[in-house]
C-alpha cells in the first residue's frame, strides 16, 4: 500500500527548474532511498513534501489524501516528520525540550491549563516527559537530556534531530543526509537506528550520499539528476543501471 505518492511535481525558482515532473511512490513500511548529485533537487523534494515550498505544479498525496497546499505544521501533524540537511535544532533549549517540542502535536495542553497548572496539564507534562526520555534512549542521548542542544557534538545533534522528528509519532520519516559528518562507528549505529525505526512501523524516506549506507539499508532507491528522476529500483538494479553509473555513481564511487 502506498503511503506517499508524488505525482508529476515540478518546482521552479526564478527560472531554475529544481524539480522537473518528478513522480514516485513510497510503500508503507519500506526504507526508500533518494540519491543524486548535489543540487539534484533532493532537499527541494523534502521541502515540498513537508509544505515548506509550494510546488509549481503537481500533487503530493499522503495516506490517500492530498496534502498539497497544507501549512507545514499541518503536514507534521498528519504524520510526516523530518530532519534537515543543515541541522536546525533549537540550540538554546535543552536536549529534552527539543524532543518535547517535537511532541507538540501529540500532546494537547493549551495556554489556559498551562498557566493554571491544572492537574490534567501536570499529568500531560509527565507523560510528555516520559515519552521524550524514551525517545532520547532510542537515539542514545538519555544521558544528555539536560544539556543545551547547541552544545552537543555534530553526530549527536543529528541523532537528536531524529528523536525530535520521531516525537511527532510520524508514519513517515524523512531523513536528509543523516550520516553527513559522522564517522564510521556513528554510521554503523545510525544504520541500526534506522532499522529500529522501521521496525516501529515507521516508513523512512532517506536522502544520503554514503553509498554504503544507502545500498545497505534501502529496499528501493530513486535517483534524481538535475531535477529529473532518471532511475528507480532495488539497490541491485540501481548499481547496474548505466544511466546512474554515468551521471552519478561513476563519479562518486
Amino acid at each position: 500500500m502506498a503511503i506517499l505518492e508524488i505525482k508529476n511535481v515540478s518546482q521552479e525558482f526564478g527560472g531554475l527548474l529544481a524539480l522537473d515532473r518528478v513522480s514516485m511512490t513510497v510503500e508503507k513500511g519500506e526504507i526508500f532511498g533518494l540519491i543524486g548529485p548535489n543540487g539534484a533537487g533532493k532537499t527541494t523534494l523534502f521541502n515540498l513534501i513537508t509544505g515548506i515550498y509550494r510546488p509549481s505544479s503537481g500533487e503530493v498525496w499522503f495516506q490517500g489524501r492530498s496534502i498539497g497546499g497544507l501549512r507545514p505544521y499541518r503536514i507534521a501533524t498528519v504524520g510526516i516528520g523530518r530532519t534537515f540537511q543543515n541541522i536546525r535544532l533549537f540550540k538554546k533549549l535543552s536536549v529534552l525540550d527539543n524532543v518535547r517540542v517535537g511532541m507538540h502535536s501529540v500532546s494537547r495542553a493549551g495556554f489556559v491549563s498551562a498557566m493554571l497548572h491544572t492537574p490534567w496539564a501536570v499529568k500531560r507534562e509527565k507523560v510528555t516527559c516520559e515519552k521524550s526520555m524514551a525517545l532520547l534512549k532510542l537515539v542514545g542521548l538519555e544521558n544528555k537530556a539536560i544539556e543545551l542542544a547547541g552544545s552537543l557534538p555534530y553526530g549527536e545533534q543529528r541523532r537528536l534531530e531524529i528523536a525530535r522528528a520521531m516525537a511527532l509519532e510520524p508514519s513517515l520519516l524523512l531523513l536528509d543526509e543523516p550520516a553527513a559528518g559522522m564517522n564510521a562507528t556513528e554510521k554503523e549505529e545510525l544504520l541500526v537506528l534506522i532499522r529500529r525505526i522501521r521496525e516501529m512501523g515507521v516508513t523512512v524516506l532517506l536522502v544520503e550520499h554514503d553509498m554504503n549506507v544507502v545500498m545497505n539499508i534501502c529496499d528501493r532507491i530513486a535517483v534524481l539528476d538535475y531535477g529529473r528522476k532518471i532511475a528507480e529500483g532495488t539497490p541491485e538494479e540501481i548499481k547496474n543501471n548505466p544511466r546512474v553509473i554515468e551521471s552519478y555513481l561513476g563519479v562518486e564511487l
Partner: protein
Amino acid sequence: MFWQQLINGLTLGSSYALIALGYTMVYGIIQLINFAHGEIYMFGAFVGLFLVLTFKVNIFVAVLGAMIFCMLLGMLIERVAYRPLRGSSRLSALISAIGVSIFLSTLMVLIRGPKVTSYPAGIFKIAYFDLGTVEISSLQIIILVTAGLLMLGLQLLIQHTRIGKAMRACSQDLDAARLMGINVDRVISFTFAVGSALAAAGGVMVGIYYNAVQPYMGLMAGLKAFAAAVLGGIGSVPGAMAGGMVLGILENLGIAYLSSSYKDAIAFGILILCLLVRPQGLLGKATTKKV
C-alpha cells in the same frame, strides 16, 4: 489642486525614495532592517545645515558635504555595531541597530538641543514658476532633478560597475558570492556607504524644503521610507524608487483631501495594507527562502 498636490507629492516622494534605497539595499544583502538609517538621514540634514550656516555654501555643496560625512558614518556604524553580529540571530542585529538609532538621536540632542532649527530667512533665493494651474518652485525643481540624478547614478553604478555587479551577486546569495571570491565585507561596507550618502542627500533637501531640522526627525522619516521600501518590494532598487514616489503622492493627496493631523497615519496604513495584500510589494518577486 490635484496637479499641485502631485508635484508636491513627487518632491516629498523623491526624498522618501532616497531614504528607502538605503533600507532596501542593505536588506537585500544582509536581511537587516537598518534601524539607524533614519538617524543617518537626520545627521545628513544637520551636517547640511551646519555647512550652510558656517560656511555659507550653496545647496549643492551642502548636499555633497553631507553625503560624504554620512558615507563615513554609515560605514563606521556597520563596522562597530553590525559586523560583530554577522553570525548572530537576526533579533540581536536588529536590537543593536535600534541601539545605534537611539544613540545617534540622543547624541544630536546633546549637541544641538531638542528644538527645531530653521535656515535663516532668505538664505536661498526661491523663484516660483506659474504654469497655469500649478505652481512649482525652483527649490522643488532642484530637489527633483538632484534626486533624479542620484537615482540614475545609482542605477549606473549597480548595473555597469564591478562593485555594482558584486552587490547584485551578494544580494542573490551571500554565501555563494563569498565562495566566488567576492570580498563580502567590502561589498557590505560599500552598500552602507552608498545608502547612507543617498539618505544624507534626502536629509539636506527635506531640511531645506520644510525649513526644519530636528534630532528626532529620523524616526518618522525612516519609518515612512521603510513603508515605501516595503510598498515597492523590499530588496528591489527600482521598487524603492517607485514606492517612495507613490507614498509621497498618496500622502500629499491625503493631506489635501482628508485631514493633516493624521498625515503620518497614511504611510502606516499603506504599510499594513501592503503586508496584508501583497507582502512582496509592487515590484518585488515572491521568493522562497532557501531551507
